């Protein structure tokens, strides 16, 4: 078809659409191959050994189907100590005014660990810029969750000295902590819907991520740090009752978003 003035709008729309589609396509960069000698690759996919599993005698897990030998590998083990909430480092982090402001009134300690030299949040290079004593082993990453601001808070500490409050990626949620789990269980057990039914059952907690819902009364914790608490016979992995718990509120009864009997399969 010969282009005419009348077909011009159509051509423009088409070219704009193609440009738009290309712009929206996932970006995938592809460099040319480097000029290395092309050594031949294996001609065939290798045959692999047979490894099958059977239930262990006590049902506790699957084990390889074969003979267990008593030969133990040569092992050396090292003891690593946990940095607890009452340690001087964590106490010092919690007292710093910048940290207190970031945490607000309601927060939980999650964990504290020595940071690796190129830790994304607390790299050792921070120490060099702040002219603090820089030994590779001295940076500690202390993690909290601020329920006042619904945000994780990471504090970089050089021993008991505050170093920085790094920015946190938008979707990052630190793993559940012991204290949060204990609190979520305590609150769930107080809920009138299940209070009498969960006595004698073992409670378990897992961090969840409620979806966004249209109606405000149905927004069951979206954007908050929410725990799914289940009650089951010990070791069964078979929940009988559940509760969805949001620890944001100071008032216990306001924190159980849902609770009830787990529907049967």
């Amino acid at each position, binding site marked *: 078809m010969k282009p005419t003035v009348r077909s011009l709008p159509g051509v423009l729309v088409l070219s704009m659409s193609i440009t738009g589609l290309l712009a929206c396509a996932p970006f995938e960069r592809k460099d040319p191959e480097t000029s290395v000698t092309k050594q031949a690759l294996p001609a065939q996919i290798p045959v692999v050994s047979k490894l099958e599993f059977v239930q262990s005698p006590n049902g506790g897990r699957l084990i390889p189907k074969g003979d267990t030998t008593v030969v133990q590998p040569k092992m050396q083990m*090292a003891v690593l100590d946990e940095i*607890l909430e009452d340690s001087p480092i964590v106490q010092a982090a919690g007292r710093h005014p910048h940290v207190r402001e970031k945490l607000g009134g309601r927060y939980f300690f999650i964990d504290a660990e020595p940071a*690796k030299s190129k830790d994304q949040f607390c790299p050792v290079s921070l120490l060099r810029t702040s002219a603090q004593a820089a030994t590779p082993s001295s940076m500690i990453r202390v993690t909290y969750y601020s329920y006042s601001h619904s945000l994780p808070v990471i504090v970089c500490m050089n021993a008991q000295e505050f170093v920085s409050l790094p920015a946190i990626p938008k979707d990052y949620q630190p793993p559940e902590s012991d204290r949060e789990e204990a609190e979520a269980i305590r609150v769930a057990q107080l809920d009138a819907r299940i209070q009498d039914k969960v006595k004698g059952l073992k409670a378990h907690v897992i961090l969840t991520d409620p979806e966004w819902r249209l*109606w405000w009364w149905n927004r069951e914790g979206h954007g908050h740090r929410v725990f799914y608490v289940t009650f089951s016979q010990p070791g069964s992995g078979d929940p009988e009752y559940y509760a969805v718990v949001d620890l944001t509120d100071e008032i216990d009864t306001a924190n159980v978003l849902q609770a009830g009997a787990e529907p049967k399969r």
Partner: protein
Amino acid sequence: MRSVLIACCLFCAMVMGTPAFAEPRSGTITWEKWTFDWEVYGNQSLALSDVTFDRELILSKASLPVIKVKYEREWPWYHPYSWFGIGRSTGRCGPFQDRIAWRHLEPVPGCGDKVCTRSYTVDGVKWLEVGAYARIGEYHLYHAWYLSELGEIRPVLQSRGLSCQTTHQHHPYWRLDFGIAGEGRDQVFVYTDGAPNEGWGPGWHKYTNEVNAVKDPPKHRSWFVRDSQNGHGVWVLPGDGYPPLMNDGEPQSGFSTRDVSVRRYHEEEDTGWLFGARGDLGYLNGEGVQEEVTTFWYTAHLPHHAAMGPAAWLAVGPVLKVQR
């Protein structure tokens, strides 16, 4: 790596005073032709590092930063309650992002320790098992590495238990930092039946940049990471499945959409899982991966049908095979 950690923790012990408790959370193992360190650190489950086979490095680190879990909708798409966010369209519980830390570990049944090492002989081949047993919510998780005397590594996740009585999938994300031969000049290739010969042999294609990929079992798609100089390498083969499962499962639309991701190694990206329960792996910047230390992510997809109940153990994981 382990010595750095030990130094860190000795320092911590000094500034903290009395240690909270003292259990071995890391160690070194020498078995047959294998030598490696293990550790439980940084919410990445049981990790192996400085893994050598026959005195040559094959993995600088191998870990399991996350197991994402997605439950099926409680309401089907045609039910009005699932429309426009009116109701619980994707289920009452989850999604979850399970990150195994020391605090989740319990003594391994039949073993006693929190990190269990056992040797087995299967069809005349010796295997070493190094595993950790974790409880997260209602889940019983056993994450183990099986190493054979013939140069195979099987990362395996076993799982049982239900958080809700609904069908769901576990998506373990294994992170494998290569650096084969310790030289930082990895090449990553993908093999697919029938793919044209680009100079590397029929079916082979060399990855030049960071990429996400999926399995293609009918075409035997598999991956090979090797040192560009000595040609020594490691195959990454999708798992054939441990019965009753038949394979490593299929990606789940909108939640865990790939099987393999190749990235250029950056130490600062080894900081656990930062992408939330709903997010998928990032770090896709188009960086070149030719003759660099590469990080290879392998994601399996373990389906757990609610009708199977909470007691049945299911297991998935790929096969890594040393090629010399």
